[in-house]
């Protein structure tokens, strides 16, 4: 037997959802976050329509990316056939509503449509989190904490991109407080998520991928980004908020790439007991490639 097949005893990094699959979550989450942030931009006297439009473009780019990835793209509309249990179907059904409300908001600028698009943005980001959670074959995704961190990341990205626009509309610098608060919320969600994985057990490769990513995510994606966003708001410095927003958004995108591609290891196989042979009794089992929860 080849080494490749022997390796399948231990969890292996999934390869089916590559960067194209990850882009659905990167663009989709950021786009949904932008839709959520649009009414806040409007409240600060900025025109929400460019943000709505960009949000829709990002969501569309994510869906287009995953369309390029699927094996039978010309049958893609079959995706809507199982709303009863499939979050992928639900995401596909939410998308036209989101595009409808968002397009109406872009054309009319009416607060009702802007608010409706924002609400659907939250639902869309949540559906993306649930797509991951439903995939119980990937230990890094099936925890409820994963949904929270995915939604939080999408929101941070959306507001962070609006923060970038403070270079054009300086009145948006006040949004820096909210950007900083959301970065703190994402930090809490992220640390809770990783702690949850360690507490409940996860493939060694999953934890190694997150450990490798954590320092940059912590210092650049959270500490520096949050401080700059806060500075931007406090000192009315659009450049600081834009820099903080860029770091937060890039950090979020890299986190989702790590989550979907690098830290996504399969369950692998376990042997609860070794078989009894001859007169022996069953021996202790094992689950290779896993870091089990610490006792106590």
């Amino acid at each position, binding site marked *: *037997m080849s080494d490749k097949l022997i390796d399948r005893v231990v969890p292996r990094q999934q390869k089916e959802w590559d960067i194209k699959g990850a882009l659905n979550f990167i663009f989709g989450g950021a786009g949904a976050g932008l839709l959520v942030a649009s009414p806040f931009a409007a409240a600060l006297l900025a025109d929400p329509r460019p943000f709505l439009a960009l949000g829709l473009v990002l969501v569309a780019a994510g869906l287009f990316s995953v369309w390029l990835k699927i094996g039978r793209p010309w049958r893609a509309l079959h995706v809507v056939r199982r709303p009863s249990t499939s979050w992928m179907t639900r995401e596909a059904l939410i998308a036209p509503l989101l595009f409808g409300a968002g397009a109406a908001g872009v054309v009319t600028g009416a607060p009702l449509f802007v608010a409706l698009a924002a609400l659907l943005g939250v639902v869309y980001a949540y559906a993306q989190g649930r797509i991951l959670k439903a995939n119980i074959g990937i230990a890094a995704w099936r925890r409820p904490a994963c949904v929270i961190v995915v939604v939080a990341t999408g929101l941070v990205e959306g507001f962070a991109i609006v923060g970038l626009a403070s270079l054009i509309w300086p009145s948006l610098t006040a949004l820096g407080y909210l950007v900083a608060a959301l970065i703190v919320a994402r930090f809490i969600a992220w640390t809770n998520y990783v702690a949850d994985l360690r507490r409940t057990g996860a493939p060694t490769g999953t934890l190694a991928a997150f450990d490798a990513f954590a320092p940059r995510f912590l210092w650049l994606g959270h500490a520096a980004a949050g401080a700059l966003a806060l500075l931007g708001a406090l000192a009315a410095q659009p450049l600081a908020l834009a820099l903080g927003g860029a770091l937060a958004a890039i950090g979020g995108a890299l986190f989702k790439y790590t989550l979907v591609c690098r830290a996504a290891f399969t369950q692998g196989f376990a042997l609860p*007991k070794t078989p009894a042979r001859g007169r022996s009794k069953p021996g202790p089992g094992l689950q290779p490639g896993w870091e089990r929860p610490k006792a106590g």
Partner: protein
Amino acid sequence: MSATAQKRYVMAIDLRRCVGCQTCTAACKNANATPPGVQWRRVLDIETGDFPDVQRTFMPVGCMHCANPPCMHVCPTTATKLRADGLVTIDYDICIGCANCVMACPYDARSIQHVAKYAYGTPMKSEEARFDAERLGVATKCTFCKDRIDLAALTGQTPGVDPEVTPACVNSCISDAMHFGDINDPNSNVSKMLGRTEHFRMHEELGTDPSIYYIVDGEET
């Protein structure tokens, strides 16, 4: 409910007997013409213990035909279905190859082949004859040889007893480690065997209710 609807076909594999010969793997490839790199049935080779007290266990794995299949729940197209007799099936005409089911399966049982592959690059005549374009770009996995199971309904034979209606891997097993049958029939071979042996199911804690039982102790099978 018909008698068929009450059946639940399962596999019982005696790990004490499996010698890791991979005959089941070869039989599956022969029966189902899976391409290179795709194995619906494979045998894991697991080493345990510390020298000199070591043990080697061979564990055949594949689709567990779960009664609560996560692959079906996430499938957005309804291509993956759970039959009344417990078999989890894929409709190749509906599947879009999104790989959601691949991610949902904790048994690494599904694969998607995007381009045709042949053992030696260019197809041999046998590969040409058995090539199935329907299987490109869609999820595939072990079917429990469902064509044979369906044949049983026509012939009146019993899967797990009559070789013509029993999965190829089970038929091929040289050490009689693999058994197949209806666990809802208390008189079936698998029901009796599981009643007198100690066994486990893979990753039961995930709530999938898998249909492959691994025997590790108890009476000889």
